[in-house]
């Protein structure tokens, strides 16, 4: 009989073997990497614009003494904020932790808007819920909540991607400690209620800010994942798996993303982007739901155009290099989906969001 060492080694060698198309791997990695770079540069550019704007307010605004104890967005030139609307009929995570991550349209916790500002929120079905927030103008704090202690390790903070890992088994004891995977990051894990697991992480450590961010969370309320775009009828068999909204630069920039899934590899996303300082795209080659639209050269992306300062894009099909899986969302399904979306007339008025 073969010993266990040898049997494991043989099994692994057998399962790992097979040709690898290095050219395809390089092409695909580079293409995705460039897309990531563009996204990062956009995020950094937006942040720099915001820093510039806040810096100007700082120079011309009141002195430090007058600012003490006041939120920066409640000063003479208040920064408009967005608070997702309450879902009154739905219990909060502390009341029923089993609801967390079950409905991408609902966030089962919230913030005290007097103590923190929403920068964004996200629900991923069967994974968990996320709120990004800022306390008194601080840098971003990201809070992830789930029904499982195994919180996902890949996080994006301030537009940068990190792997937040815990050596050994994660300890949900509420202590604030350095986050591995970041130079100066801090992380805390705790259980807001039995059966509920939370993690707050920030990129550059400030223990007091992280503590105040945690204190600003509200666990007995639920809020809707509202956005300036609402999906209508979904393709047959598909369901919404992701709702993600970013209001960090509101009212100049509002983005939202919805993920749809039908089977393990059948995915489609609908992205909404309003930017007050951009123009209006007009190139079109078709009409969808009465609006001009454009199909990408690769045939995997449909965009509604002609909407002032707004882009609405559906990505479908198999966008990566390599063999496409047998079943993917079709152009016809993406067309029907875009024909049925509802758009807020004024994205800068959150009251009108769907």
């Amino acid at each position: 009989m073969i010993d266990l060492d040898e049997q494991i080694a043989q099994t692994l060698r057998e399962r790992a073997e097979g040709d690898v198309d290095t050219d395809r791997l390089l092409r695909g990695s580079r293409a995705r990497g460039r897309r990531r770079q563009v996204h990062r540069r956009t995020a950094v550019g937006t942040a720099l614009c915001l820093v510039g704007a806040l810096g100007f307010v700082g120079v011309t605004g009141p002195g430090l003494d007058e600012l003490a104890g006041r939120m920066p967005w409640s000063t003479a030139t208040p920064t408009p904020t967005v608070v997702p609307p309450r879902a009154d009929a739905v219990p909060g995570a502390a009341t029923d932790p089993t609801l967390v991550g079950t409905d991408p349209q609902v966030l089962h916790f919230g913030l005290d808007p007097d103590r923190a500002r929403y920068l964004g929120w996200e629900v991923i079905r069967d994974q968990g819920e996320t709120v990004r927030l800022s306390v008194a103008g601080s840098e971003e704090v990201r809070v992830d909540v789930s029904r499982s202690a195994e919180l996902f390790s890949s996080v994006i903070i301030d537009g940068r991607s990190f792997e937040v890992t815990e050596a050994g088994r994660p300890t949900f004891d509420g202590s604030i400690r350095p986050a591995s995977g970041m130079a100066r990051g801090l992380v805390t894990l705790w259980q807001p209620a039995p059966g509920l697991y939370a993690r707050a992480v920030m990129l550059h450590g400030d223990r007091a800010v992280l503590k105040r961010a945690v204190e600003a969370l509200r666990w007995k309320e639920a809020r809707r994942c509202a956005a300036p775009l609402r999906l209508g009828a979904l393709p047959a068999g598909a369901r919404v798996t992701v709702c993600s909204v970013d209001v960090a630069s509101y009212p100049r920039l509002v983005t939202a993303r919805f993920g749809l899934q039908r089977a393990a590899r059948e995915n489609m996303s609908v992205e909404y982007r309003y930017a007050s300082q951009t123009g209006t795209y007009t190139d079109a080659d078709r009409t969808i739901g009465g609006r001009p639209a454009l199909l990408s050269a690769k045939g995997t992306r449909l965009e509604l155009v002609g909407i002032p300062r707004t882009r609405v894009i559906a990505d479908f099909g198999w966008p990566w290099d390599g063999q496409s899986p047998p079943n993917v969302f079709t152009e016809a399904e993406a067309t029907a989906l875009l024909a049925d979306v509802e758009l807020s007339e004024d994205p800068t008025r959150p009251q009108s969001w769907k």
Partner: protein
Amino acid sequence: MTFEEYVASRGPALVRLARLLTGDEHRAEDLTQDVLSRAYVHWRRISRADRPDVYVRRMLVNANNSWWRRRSNRELAVDTFADRPQRGDLDGEVADRDEMWRLILALPDRQRAVLVLRYYEDLDDTTIAQILDCSPVTVRTHAMRAFANLRGRCGVPAKDGSRP
């Protein structure tokens, strides 16, 4: 070393490692592309590291361990179980390895990663610890648990001096 040189020399090994971590060929390539695309963005910094390959393999293991991937893997693993050949369909050795693969796939992520890095990549515990961002003691603990798990389920004896 440029990014292109790195992918040309190490890309195939990364995909093979991903096959063992994910248990699915398509997902392995997708995962490897995703990790390499992140490495591409930070390549200047990564290439200056003492051992860039350790860093990239850590990214690969972490990416696979992320919840989204794990959840998808579980779905695929169920398919794998359902479709697996019965013992009588193949000769004894192949059937044994098929059974062993099924058991390895069913191990917790960290235990499986330790086995793959130790028995396929043939890395020492110190390097595995660097990749998994834990101590060598934790690596040995994962290995011992994985061994106990496999031994208990398949009834294969460990030889004297087995690595755990």
